[in-house]
């Protein structure tokens, strides 16, 4: 039980993570491509794909011994799952011939490739977490970190079957969830969600914009309820 | 002993057989109803078995109908003949046990000279049926269960017999009626008011007998052969409907028989203090007294069953060979010494 008062999220500088960032920009050296610090929330470090395993080792030796998870992100333009004939989906079919367009401008730590691998580690002594990222190149291969963290074994298998990313040095990249004969990589953005194509998702209706003339009225209602609740104990 | 009625041999045998055929299912039903439905449901706060019909009496019928209407399934690769025979062999062992159980001075199917010895011998027959069931089911879990059962029953047969030896030495007879008589006419250091129930002088033997019986009956904490969470039900995993019911009846029938053996050997059987052993009244009262004693012993068997976790196979074997058998041997030696000295 810590006696710290709940930290005011934005006001105080996050000294703990800033010190970490400084430490790692030194120890990782050229491997560190980019970093992002969200005060009091998390620290992102993007390293080069070649130094992936070494970077993980370096970070581990700095006290980040607790393995959280490993996964991947596909930055391909998403069809957003609306397999319906809306204006949103009309542009989809032409995409086949064009080179894959990626947009990872919103991702923390930036990136240049469609696929990114990320791993989350904890330092128990510092009580702080850290997210490492790396770009996956055209060959769709990165080094395995199974030798550093045995727990990464299954996570890499999952990333392999779901995204088609290979992990160099991983002995058993068999599918974990999917049947052996399954073709395709379901978590890629271009993998169609067949059920959604057969039957449109009724939930789409829910998220339609509210007509403008009703918005003000609804807002007032919500506010009234909010005020009314405020008095209740 | 006086004979109550003088009947021709075949009539007497017929009556005895008919009685046995009625008594055996009834006794197992009594145990199932009383302990499995009532006591267990009460102890485990389960509502169902106390709620079906008046006082939950219809639960038994419901269960029986449920089992009888189920399809009799054979696994595709099973050895059919052996598969079908196995529950019958197990049940036959139970039936044979009942032959020597005395319920009164004359109320016994066959008063064998070597009653205890006979009981031990036929109780070991059930292993055969369990092995048959395990092998013929063509299922790895069943086979493992059968093998476990065999290993366990062989190991616990020994302490069981050795525990009985103490009683036999003290009673100077293998005859179950003789053992009852020995307890009724016996004295503890000169005091004969309550006879000499061997539970007092052979308490160690009683403990060993009860533990070994628990293992013979494959009840928790020795229920590895049928452990659901490990072997999914062990040797009877592939059995359904009536054949499963046979196993079930055999299990409870044998539990009843072992409780009866324990009450005959350690609690004085059908004898009530204050009565003469040859009293004809005991032929009428005896079965009731026996039943009360049997239910008392069975209560402990099932109480342990519902309360304890399960041992592991190697722990079970270690317990048998390193604890129970040396203790039983020590008991025999001690009994022998006392017998000679006093």
């Amino acid at each position, binding site marked *: 039980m810590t006696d710290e008062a709940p930290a005011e999220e934005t006001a105080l500088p996050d000294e703990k993570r800033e010190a970490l960032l400084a430490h790692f920009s030194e120890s990782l050296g050229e491997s560190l491509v980019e970093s992002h610090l969200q005060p009091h929330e998390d620290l992102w470090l993007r390293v080069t794909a070649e130094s992936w395993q070494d970077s993980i080792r370096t970070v581990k030796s700095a006290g980040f011994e607790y393995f959280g998870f490993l996964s991947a992100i596909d930055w391909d333009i998403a069809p957003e799952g609306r397999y319906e004939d809306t204006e949103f989906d009309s542009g989809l079919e032409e995409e086949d011939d064009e080179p894959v367009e990626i947009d990872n401008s919103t991702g923390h730590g930036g990136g240049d490739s469609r696929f990114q691998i990320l791993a989350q580690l904890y330092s128990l002594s510092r009580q702080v977490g850290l997210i490492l990222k790396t770009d996956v190149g055209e060959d769709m291969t990165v080094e395995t970190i199974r030798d550093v963290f045995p727990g990464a074994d299954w996570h890499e298998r999952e990333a392999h079957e779901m995204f088609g990313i290979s992990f160099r040095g991983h002995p058993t990249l068999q599918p974990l969830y999917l049947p052996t004969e399954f073709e395709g990589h379901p978590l890629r953005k271009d993998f169609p969600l067949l059920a959604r194509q057969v039957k449109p998702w009724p939930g789409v209706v829910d998220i339609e914009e509210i007509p403008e003339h009703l918005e003000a009225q609804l807002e007032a209602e919500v506010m009234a309820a909010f005020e009314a609740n405020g008095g209740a104990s | 002993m006086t004979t109550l009625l003088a009947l021709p041999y075949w009539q007497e045998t017929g009556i005895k057989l008919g009685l046995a055929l009625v008594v055996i299912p009834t006794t197992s039903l009594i145990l199932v109803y009383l302990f499995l439905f009532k006591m267990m449901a009460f102890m485990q706060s389960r509502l169902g078995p106390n709620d079906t019909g008046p006082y939950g009496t219809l639960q038994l019928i419901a269960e029986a109908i449920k089992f009888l209407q189920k399809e009799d399934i054979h696994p595709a690769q099973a050895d059919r003949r052996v598969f079908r025979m196995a529950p019958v062999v197990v049940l036959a062992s139970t039936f044979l046990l009942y032959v020597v159980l005395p319920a009164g001075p004359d109320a016994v199917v066959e008063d064998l000279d070597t009653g205890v010895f006979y009981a031990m011998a036929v109780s070991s027959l059930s292993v055969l049926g369990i092995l048959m069931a395990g092998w013929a089911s063509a299922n790895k879990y069943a086979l493992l269960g059968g093998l476990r059962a065999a290993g366990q029953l062989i190991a616990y047969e020994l302490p069981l017999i050795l525990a009985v030896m103490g009683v036999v030495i003290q009673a100077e007879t293998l005859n179950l009626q003789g053992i009852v008589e020995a307890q009724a006419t016996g004295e503890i250091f000169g005091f004969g008011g309550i006879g000499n129930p061997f539970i007092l002088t052979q308490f160690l033997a009683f403990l060993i007998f009860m533990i070994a019986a628990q293992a013979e009956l494959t009840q928790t904490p020795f229920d590895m052969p049928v452990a659901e*969470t490990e072997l999914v039900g062990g040797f009877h995993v592939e059995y359904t409907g009536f054949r499963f019911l046979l196993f079930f009846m055999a299990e409870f029938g044998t539990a009843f028989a072992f409780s009866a053996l324990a009450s005959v050997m350690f609690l004085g059987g059908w004898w009530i203090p204050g009565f003469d052993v040859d009293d004809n009244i005991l032929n009428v009262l005896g079965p009731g007294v026996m039943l009360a004693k049997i239910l008392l012993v069975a209560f402990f068997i099932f109480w342990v069953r519902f309360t304890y*976790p399960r041992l592991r196979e190697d722990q079970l074997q270690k317990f048998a060979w390193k604890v129970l058998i040396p203790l039983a041997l020590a008991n025999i030696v001690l009994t022998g010494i006392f017998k000679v000295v006093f």
Partner: protein
Amino acid sequence: MTATSDREQMAYVSSQAADARVNVELDTGDMTLNIGPQHPATHGTLRLACRLDGEQVVVAEPIMGYMHRGYEKLCEVRTYPQCTTLINRIDWLGSFANEVPFILAAERLMEVEAPPRAQWIRTILFELSRVANLALFLGDMGVQIGALTPVFFAFRDRERVLNQIEEVTGGRFHPNFDRIGGLKDDIPKGWVEETRSVMVKMRTFCDEMEDLLVGNEIFQARCRGVGVIPPEVALGYGLSGANLRASGVDWDLRRDANPGLAWDQVDWRVWTHPDGDSFARYWVRLQETREATHIVDQLLDGIPSGPIMAKVPRIIKVPAGEAYLSTENPLGEMGYYIVSKGDLGPFRVKIRTPSFNNISIVPWVMKGVYVPDVITILGSLYFILGDIDR
């Protein structure tokens, strides 16, 4: 999944089931035993392919995916509020606790904070689902090693906790009660007193379990020294929750990385056990259940007054960004890595479930143990299938 792949999956499953039967010959050497996918001890559809030498395990390889529902993909085609419906079904025994980290992560991205009253009630419900979840474990562990009675007690007493959750949320298993910015509703009148009396009953239940199992020699003989996981191995595999703490690692996200819930407002302690065996895991969970009832008791005393919902727009659009947020769920660390592009729904959700990491240690820990110990270890690691397969 499509109908074809469903059929394929079924064919695959049934071929594996046929495999469980004895083949033509059986050698004393090696034997393959499939524990699961339909096995009473795997409570769900986990399959352990074990190579046995006699009754000793040579290799045990968990095979799953029989229940994989693709939640990560499905979340990508739903709005944020719709996602919680799916998320409820990950660890179905502690459903409310599943919603919290997702909602908190979304709130973090939106820079919204729920009012204190909502945070307190969240914490109370979170701890109640912990009690409900762990109570079942406490009884179920008995069944795994052959004691039938504890599980019935567990079902009986868990019901009381579920009733309390139901009274607030309307759902016993899948409350779907947490909202971005607060909660759907306030607690009903009289609920605080009722919950307090339920917590007293749950402490009695914990005492019963202590008498029935922890103090039992056979239970100790079966669990002590079985499936020992040293702390460094536990950290490397990313074990979390009681499994980690039973290995002597003093780490609890409620204390060490509190995302703003009310845990730091009350007095409680983190339990650890140095042994790292099955017994230690049971013991730690027992203490945690008891501790959770104390936390609830204290929280009930000090629920602040105020609104239960922050001011959020009716149509929730989460600003672009990434956030990882995890909480200490009944099973361990449950976290959501949300990638948002400023749309109505998440762009990518990575669900870090505790059971996935906890079960990934199985091949390591099950080398050379006996078949009965496989069950003990599986039981003590405590997994929920939906939590592995997502």
